[in-house]
């Protein structure tokens, strides 16, 4: 579903990704771990067609980037630590707006389903700026899945959320991933991602330095695996 080969990304003289290889199968939930500045966000921006790769092969949902960016975008949902929502529109208006941009048919019915899923149906007519950070993040997930994409990218979705909001977000992430979608999520919260992802990749200095499936790791050993991947 996602294929990346020898990906290089340069910003001027600074090389952020140095020949990175990465592959994700359909239905996999991959947690991309790594320290600040390791290139996680840049990598997700390349996958989401917001940034062009300097060189290398990138393909998402069967479409090459940057050549078929529009087809990739149609099959992609993105959630970042920013909500990507308009505070002066209601929850329903936000979804309706993005639904129109994505050309979603039977949009009212789809909005109902999405708001039900993210638990915001009763707040649909309230302005997003009045929402708590957790509610905004749930609506952001609603926006990302509104057009029913095959691939979802989450860039540190837990940032700024309290414990309860994180728990609620995790339940929602599990529900969304259970629908057969392919997910790549970056995070610093090793405890949380251990219960969510089916595979853990560590990105350090622009390359994947370690990869392990959930079944390959002993329970609660992800922090140790991560430490070894960075130091080894």
């Amino acid at each position, binding site marked *: 579903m996602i294929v990346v080969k020898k990906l290089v990304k340069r910003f001027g003289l600074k090389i952020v990704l140095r020949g990175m290889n990465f592959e994700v199968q359909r239905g996999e939930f991959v947690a991309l771990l790594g320290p600040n500045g390791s290139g996680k966000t840049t990598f997700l921006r390349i996958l989401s067609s917001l940034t062009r790769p300097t060189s290398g092969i990138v393909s998402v949902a069967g479409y090459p980037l940057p050549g078929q960016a529009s087809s990739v*975008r149609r099959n992609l949902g993105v959630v970042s630590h920013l909500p990507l929502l308009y505070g002066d529109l209601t929850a329903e208006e936000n979804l309706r707006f993005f639904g129109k941009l994505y050309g979603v048919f039977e949009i009212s019915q789809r909005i109902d389903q999405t708001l039900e899923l993210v638990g915001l149906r009763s707040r649909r007519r309230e302005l997003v700026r009045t929402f708590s950070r957790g509610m905004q993040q749930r609506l952001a997930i609603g926006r990302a899945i*509104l057009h*029913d994409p095959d691939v979802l990218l989450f860039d540190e979705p837990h940032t700024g959320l309290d414990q309860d909001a994180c728990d609620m977000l995790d339940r929602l992430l599990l529900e969304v991933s259970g629908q057969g979608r392919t997910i790549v999520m970056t995070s610093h919260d090793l405890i949380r991602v251990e219960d969510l992802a089916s595979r853990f990749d560590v990105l350090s200095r622009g390359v994947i330095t370690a990869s392990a499936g959930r079944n390959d790791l002993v329970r609660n050993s992800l922090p140790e695996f991560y430490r070894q991947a960075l130091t080894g």
Partner: protein
Amino acid sequence: MVKAATSSSSSPARDSSNRSNATFVKSIGAIIWKDLVAELRSRELLSAMLVFALLVILIFNFALELDATTRKVATPGILWATFAFAGTLGLNRSMALEKDRGCLDGLLLAPVDRSAIYFGKLISNLVFMLVVEAIVLPVYSVLYNTNLFNPGLISVILLGSVGYVAVGTLLSSMAVQTRTRDVLLPILLFPIIIPILIAAVKASSGFLQGIAPTEIMPYINLLIVYDVIFTAVAYMVFDFVVEE
């Protein structure tokens, strides 16, 4: 969960072309609707532009103390300086609102031709600019005791605003990506809009002073050509400007 249908399913070439045109227009409509609804609720952009514009004409009124003759000569310059400064404020804020909450990324992630985003923002910005101008004109007329309800002048303001906003929307989407966006936009914008400001001031002056239309037409033509060229250039380069 029910699979959401999108309007991208395969179809014959003509249907596909018609559909993509319809999607393009719908996307522009959606962006305009979003901007207008958000602005009606917050009034953040319009109020800032309007207060600034009114303050500028008030300051000019007290600073220049014009008599009846010089008033007619100075009016086009004062008006266009006011529109240009207030417009810059609006253009900056319009894009900053998109950038601050990551909404610009949200727009760029949508599977629409990115020029639809440009045209959507252009039309929204133009509406805001015209609203401010529609309020400034009668206030100016009262303050300066000058009749500005001249169809020729109105058409010049319309043409000048289109050109100004066409360039301004493009440059503000470029400037908003930088840390110094507030100062960068006027520095980039004003040198490029000098031809439009000169043509607009000359044409406005011509209509206010009752000069023969044949003498004004070259400036009107310049405004039209400028509008067409810069809208076309912006249409072609917007994709590259918004991409990192």
